[in-house]
């Protein structure tokens, strides 16, 4: 340590610097985005509004040009992506890990399921989802307060216990929560305005599958819009400070615990919404839907996507939806029984987690971004080299 201070400028210095810069930039995407030549507005909020609008258009187009089966796959994608978005804020931005997000999704799902029992349509759907979010947030705050004092493996172990233990409560409260069978969910019917909207856009019939896919897409867009703004705000910067420089941040008067709890609460809220959407789409809230594998799948999604990147979380979630049918087909094609082939997807998740951590810890998006920034740094270093070497 004591020998680190000696400056020794050399020809190799500039290029060796690039990866460090790239990592820093990858962690603070706003910096890269706002300095680059971009067609998007300079203001963060305005830029995100434009992206929100583009996302909405893309969602409508995507849902209208695809068949009902793909519609339901996209609905599945939406709840994975909502939960993964929340988790990536927690793990990527704040450096906390949670294996309990599957359990938090269960809280949201059971809340939605309970509110949708008879009499049906007593509450408007947005309110039901909101209540699910609030309930899960409360549970998340409780967990977060405990988790804020833990880190790394301790937090992983505690949330692992949550993931394994919480579904047991559904069995314990058998009468209210339906035990192992779970609660059936009667999905609310689409409002008339939706039917006329679909009629206007594509003239197709407005099935309930389609309606639920739209609900998922709307929830996803709102969640990502809010998370994106949060991440770019002072709050997001403080989270990154807590993650990277916890000692310095504490000396600067930042209450580390409170910020960690806040990160947990925000990600729990997203998990709650994801759980609510899941209950609607799957039409069931049962313990078997919230196994440890669900939590680990979410972790896989954000690791593949590159920790801390919302776009990465979305892409990672897409993989969770579209990879299993692909590898399962591959498995049955090569002679595995269907139950065996169904295990290929989690097998691939596990292998991907290991390989990603060993070879590309920055994830898919992070690695590509890093390459790009390294290239850019090399180019500008080429120009700046003469000036740089004269410094020493």
């Amino acid at each position, binding site marked *: 340590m004591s020998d680190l201070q000696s400056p020794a400028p050399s020809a190799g210095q500039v290029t060796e610097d690039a990866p460090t810069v790239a990592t820093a930039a990858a962690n603070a995407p706003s910096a890269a985005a706002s300095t680059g030549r971009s067609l998007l507005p300079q203001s963060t909020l305005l830029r995100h509004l434009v992206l929100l609008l583009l996302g909405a258009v893309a969602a409508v187009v995507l849902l209208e040009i695809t068949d009902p089966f793909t519609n339901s796959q996209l609905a599945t994608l939406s709840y994975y992506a909502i939960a993964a978005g929340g988790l990536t804020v927690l793990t990527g931005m704040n*450096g906390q890990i949670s294996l309990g997000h599957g359990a938090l999704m269960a809280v949201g799902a059971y809340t939605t399921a309970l509110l949708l029992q008879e009499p049906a349509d007593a509450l408007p759907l947005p309110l039901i989802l909101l209540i699910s979010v609030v309930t899960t947030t409360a549970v998340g705050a409780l967990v977060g307060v405990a988790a804020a004092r833990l*880190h*790394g493996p301790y937090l992983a172990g505690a949330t692992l216990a949550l993931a394994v233990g919480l579904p047991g409560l559904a069995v314990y409260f058998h009468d209210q929560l339906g035990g192992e069978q779970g609660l059936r969910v009667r999905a609310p019917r689409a409002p008339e305005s939706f039917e006329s909207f679909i009629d206007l856009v594509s003239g197709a019939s407005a099935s309930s599958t389609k309606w639920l896919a739209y609900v998922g897409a709307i929830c996803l867009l709102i969640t990502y819009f809010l998370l994106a703004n949060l991440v770019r705000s002072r709050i997001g910067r403080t989270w990154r400070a807590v993650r990277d420089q916890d000692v310095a941040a504490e000396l600067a008067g930042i209450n580390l615990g409170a910020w960690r709890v806040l990160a947990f609460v925000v990600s729990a809220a997203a998990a709650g919404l994801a759980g609510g959407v899941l209950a609607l789409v799957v039409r069931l809230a049962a313990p078997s839907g919230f196994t440890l594998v669900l939590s680990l799948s979410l972790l896989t999604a954000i690791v593949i996507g590159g920790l801390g990147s919302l776009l990465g979380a979305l892409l990672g979630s897409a993989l969770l939806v579209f990879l299993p049918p692909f590898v399962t087909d591959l498995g049955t094609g090569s002679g595995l029984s269907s139950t*065996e082939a169904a295990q290929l997807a989690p*097998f691939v998740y596990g292998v991907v987690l*290991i390989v990603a951590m*060993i070879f590309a*810890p920055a994830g898919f998006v992070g690695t590509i971004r890093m390459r790009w920034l390294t290239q850019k740094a090399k180019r500008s270093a080429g120009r700046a080299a003469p000036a740089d070497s004269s410094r020493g």
Partner: protein
Amino acid sequence: MSYFVNVTLTGLTQGMIYAAFALALVLIWRSTRIVNFAQGSMAAATTFIALALVQAGWSYWLALVVALASGFVLGAIIERVIIRPVEGGNELNAVIVALGLFVALQAGIAIVFGSSFQSFPAPFGLEGFSVGDRRIALTPNGIYIIGAVIVTMLLLVALFRFTRVGLAMRASAFSQEVSRLLGVKVGGMLTLGWGLAAVVGSLAGLLIAGGGFVYPAYMDSLIVFGFVAAIIGGLDSPVGAIVGGLILGLALSYISGYAPRGSSLVTISALVILMVVLLVRPGGLFSSTTARRA
């Protein structure tokens, strides 16, 4: 009264298994500062190997030996190939690698051995002994479990206290750099440590499987219990892991035996116990370090 005795005996027997599993976690934590979340899947893998051998007509004991040996090989290979690249790096990366291994192994077991429930033999009787005209919850198999764990622990103590390789392993665990400078082949010691830990973890898996059903995820709750037991003991202390295992075994047995519908509360109770220990005494009951980094 006899019910209380029975619940206590059940708790102690289960606690011994938790203790063994916690010990396996502690061995790895001490040497590589990694909580091996894949321990459960690794143990499940070796248990399925034993089951396959028993189904092929082998004796339980031969199958046990082969399973433990394959546990050693599995642990050693995993350390060399998968863990070595992330050792000493970002702790989050190591946790994620262990979790990836957890999922991959579990799915791999399901692909190779199928995911249905299969009964696993117990080497000794499962009927409780009779005391007077009463049957107590202590079974011949229970005594085998307790005995096997105690023998394993004594062997480990002997290894670490009285042998040169044990000393080298302890030195490597406490200070890798100094040990390397003193000529200790630290890499080899870490591999050996993972191998041994996997043997102990496999033993726990085989013991808990005896007389019951196994399926690829049957160790999921044991990884939680083992982790909780290890945390109660401070994660750093082998003695703490054993005491933690016994405490947890008893506590969960009382909850299961006395709370209404208690058996469905066991895992969540472990979570509550874990949180209480972590919040009240973050260093565990036996840790020499006073507090964890906040």
